[in-house]
């Protein structure tokens, strides 16, 4: 099982991290994401789309975790792991604006 490295985990979870999707990124209801700056497009699965929409609506990590934990059968540790992985992917593809600590 992949575990969080402590420093990485704290970067995401110890603060009320405000994640922000870059403002010109287009996200359709089907989960299709288009970055007009790079011309790259991506497909999200329904949960990915839900998380991105939560981020877009201004929810922080704590709030997103609560929504997902309430709605789906997943334990917090697993969610943390997948959430971190997902955010890393968004960062890698340059879809996020720089994070700030709230």
């Amino acid at each position, binding site marked *: 099982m992949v575990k969080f490295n402590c420093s990485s985990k704290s970067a995401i979870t110890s603060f009320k991290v405000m994640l922000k999707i870059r403002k*010109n990124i*287009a996200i359709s209801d089907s989960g299709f994401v*288009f970055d*007009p*700056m*790079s*011309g790259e497009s991506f497909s999200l699965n329904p949960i990915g789309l839900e998380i991105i929409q939560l981020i877009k609506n201004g929810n922080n990590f704590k709030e997103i975790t609560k929504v997902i934990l309430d709605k789906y059968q997943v334990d917090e540790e697993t969610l943390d792991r997948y959430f971190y992985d997902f955010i890393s992917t968004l960062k890698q593809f340059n879809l996020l604006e720089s994070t700030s600590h709230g």
Partner: protein
Amino acid sequence: MAKLTIALSGLNNIDSPGPGIPVIRGIRDSKILDARIIGLAYENLDPGAYMHELVDKTYKVPYPSDGVEPLLERLKYIHEKEQIDVMIPNFDAELFTFMKSEKILQEMGIQTFLPTLKQFEERHKANLPEFGEKYGVKVPYSEPITSVQDFMNHKDKFEFPVVVKGKFYDAYIAYDLDQLNMYFNKIAAKWGLPIVIQEFVIGTEVNVVALGDGKGNTIGAVPMRKTYITDKGKAWGGITLEDPSMMKLTAKIISQTQWRGGMELELIRTAKNELYLIEINPRLPAWVYLAVAAGQNLPEALVRLALGEQVEPFQEYQSGKMFIRYSYDMITELHEFEQLSTKGEL
């Protein structure tokens, strides 16, 4: 507007297509221009010659390498028959001849809208480092060479892989001296000397199609990323981008060089988000119809500029517009081929 007669070259539409057909499509789409299209073909099998819905009449013309006189003689003949208003040469290899003949063509009543000889020479692949320095644009390090021995004298300035480029067309990545030698001979046999050896910049290739009015203004510009690239490095698919840095660089280059006519900037965006200029093609590229579809009919604007009209710069375009190129087996009759190959007209 009265019906115009517009002559164009670049009717080859193969896996390394010429810009002729896409330029014609732009002109055909125009709500301002009403044009009779005269195709200028170099080969009997140039597909554009047989696309009668796009090209009204085609004439064979001699290769630019045959010299200025035979080409001008042929154009005089065509002009007598067709009364050409505007001519749009679409090949790099013929531009020099047309630029040299601009005045003669003008006296005949044929308008062009081409870069000046100075602009044309300055942006040559062999002169790119000087161009970069003069205009403050990042370019990869390069050296023009006339022999592989020549390269050996500059060897310390390069690290493999390097890009081996022909003066007009063709570019190959050479990973060692053997490959460099092979590509040098291959390109030199086809396009002559010098061959340009260029530093290989790692990143994503992005391009801009643009049109300058010759007074420093950008009439239009649309950036694109190739989404599918052929083994010849040509775009087989592409998507328009929303990239202010590419637009800024284009405006800077057009403004500083006072660029006149169509151009294509070939750029590399590195992982550090830096833009390197790797080439300026002094004409509209084969993917120009993407710009038309995205809201900037650059071929139409080019024709209007050639006619001396005042053209307002385009203010916007649609990002995320895509093109997907395809090949198509056009059926034609033997007598058409016969007519073009024996009479030189179709």
